[in-house]
């Protein structure tokens, strides 16, 4: 028997989509029965009270969580989001309901063994409710009390070799697309780079030292499966520099209908027979393809590597062999001065494809990290230049993208050691308010009005 009446929430148990209400009720029941005899460290009825509180919010149309909350573990300045309800008497089971961010593995591959261990911990010391995963990437353990935080942290680190994620004005938890683990489009090992940078910058992640939050995300190609260009201050997007690899025999199999276009993504509707001219050649944004006499040609110099042709004919067209990343900076949500997507700042940093050793090739993890430091040195140089600049110049709670607007792209490029190039802009400026550096102008800025008056009377 449920502890609270929840007529409004009950409505959300119908319909085909997995119902979070049914799931939470199920967890409430498991805790009520407690067949495993767990010595619950937070109230056993936390889930019932959470549903009760949520039902109240459905009724009132307003939140019942109080403002803010500062809790954590010693040694770290973030990782836990403190939260208290404003109805502690009516719903004591969730009066404190802190969220623990746990660092997730690259691209979120798990073994059931790991997940079971994590859930055993969470059943004992938390609500049993989770978010798999937070938008940034973390495993989110939803709801526990302050005294449990150090206990959870101890078990995570000592028994599971597992750390907290980030929160606050720091480097937040980096996240990646599945990359080379299961995708032929991946231009670099997104998981390796994501893991390496996460390990490299643990200090920046756990102890807030920045003007504001900062995020990394890693997409293996411009398709953007982790949306790095929209959701990270520094976005790494894989690309290539040489030619798209074309297999004419495979092209023919698309043309004659043997291989379905887009790997069958549109098979739910009859779009007619595949028309390579209409669906690929004519849709190329730069018009750099042709299909004549059964031969597909690409004028790669004009290709912007948009992925369209490869996405349509994955068996016939492959990414190039000279691979690397583009770096885009400044993406952010609207607050304070408007939403931004990443701006291209580093067009191409090659990643040496011959350097692809694995952890297993090294005696220790330290040696592996040293090798990765060398492999990604050009990249970390840019990252650290960005941080040096923003940490010095950024105002309190000013995202990188806002600093870039306030002080200008020129200054940003100068600070990270990039020569301005045409690809840095979508189009040149239209207004003539152009600043010159004094040294660029013959004679400089020190002028004498009397000198001028000699030639121009008042």
């Amino acid at each position, binding site marked *: 028997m449920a502890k609270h009446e929840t007529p409004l929430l009950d409505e959300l148990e119908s319909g085909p989509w997995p119902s979070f209400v049914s799931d939470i009720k199920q967890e409430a029941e498991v805790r009520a029965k407690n067949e495993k005899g767990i010595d619950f460290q937070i109230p056993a009825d936390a889930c019932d009270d959470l549903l009760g509180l949520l039902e109240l919010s459905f009724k009132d149309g307003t939140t019942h969580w109080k403002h803010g909350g500062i809790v954590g573990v010693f040694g770290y300045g973030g990782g836990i989001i403190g939260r208290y309800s404003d109805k502690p008497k009516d719903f004591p089971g969730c009066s404190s309901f802190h969220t623990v961010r746990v660092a997730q593995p690259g691209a979120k591959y798990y073994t059931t063994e790991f997940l079971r261990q994590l859930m055993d911990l969470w059943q004992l010391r938390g609500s049993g409710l989770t978010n798999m995963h937070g938008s940034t990437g973390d495993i989110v353990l939803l709801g526990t009390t302050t005294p449990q935080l150090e206990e959870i942290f101890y078990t995570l680190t000592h028994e599971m070799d597992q750390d907290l994620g980030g929160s606050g004005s720091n480097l937040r938890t980096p996240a990646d697309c599945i990359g080379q683990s299961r995708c032929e489009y991946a231009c670099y090992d997104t998981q390796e780079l994501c893991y390496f940078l996460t390990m490299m910058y643990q200090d920046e992640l756990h102890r*807030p030292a920045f003007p504001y939050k900062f995020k990394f995300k890693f997409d293996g190609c411009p398709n953007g499966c982790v949306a790095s260009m929209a959701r990270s201050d520094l976005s790494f997007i894989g690309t290539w520099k040489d030619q798209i690899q074309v297999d004419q025999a495979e092209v023919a199999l698309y043309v004659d209908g043997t291989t379905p276009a887009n790997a069958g993504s549109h098979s739910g509707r009859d779009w007619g027979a595949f028309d390579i001219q209409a669906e690929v050649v004519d849709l190329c944004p730069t018009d750099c393809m042709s299909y004549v006499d059964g031969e597909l040609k690409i004028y790669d110099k004009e290709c912007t590597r948009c992925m369209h042709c490869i996405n349509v004919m994955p068996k016939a067209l492959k990414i190039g062999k000279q691979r690397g990343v583009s770096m885009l900076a400044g993406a952010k949500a609207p607050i304070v001065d408007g939403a931004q997507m990443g701006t291209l700042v580093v067009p191409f940093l090659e990643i040496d494809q011959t350097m692809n050793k694995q952890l297993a090739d090294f005696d220790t993890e330290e040696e592996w990290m040293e090798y990765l430091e060398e492999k990604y040195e050009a990249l970390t140089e840019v990252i650290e230049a960005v941080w040096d600049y923003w940490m010095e110049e950024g105002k309190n709670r000013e995202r990188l993208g806002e600093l870039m607007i306030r002080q200008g792209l020129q200054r940003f490029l100068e600070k990270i050691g990039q020569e301005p190039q045409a690809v840095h802009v979508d189009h040149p400026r239209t207004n003539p308010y152009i600043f010159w550096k004094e040294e660029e102008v013959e004679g400089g800025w020190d002028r004498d009005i009397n000198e001028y008056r000699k030639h121009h009377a008042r």
Partner: protein
Amino acid sequence: MAETIEYNGKSFDVDEDGFLLDFTQFTEEWLEIVMKEEGIAELNEEHKLVIDVLQDYYRKNGIAPMVRVLSKLTKFKLKHIYELFPSGPGKGACKMAGLPKPTGCV
């Protein structure tokens, strides 16, 4: 829930996270209360410098300084601030100095 802590004849109004609700209630006794919660055995001159700097800055500017500014004013690297205050400058040092609770996307 706000509660009132009585200690050595002084009383302090605090929130759930143990932050002072009113900066003017700060006294030496407050330091003793927070030390225990924040895992600090003994207050040395460096702790006191951080607390003084935070309080001065707060009185003058009405906000807590950015981490970078705190480091500059005290000449302590962030790492050292964590050595002094294990919960860090926000939850540790600001709480101890009696400043209001840090807000935002913490």
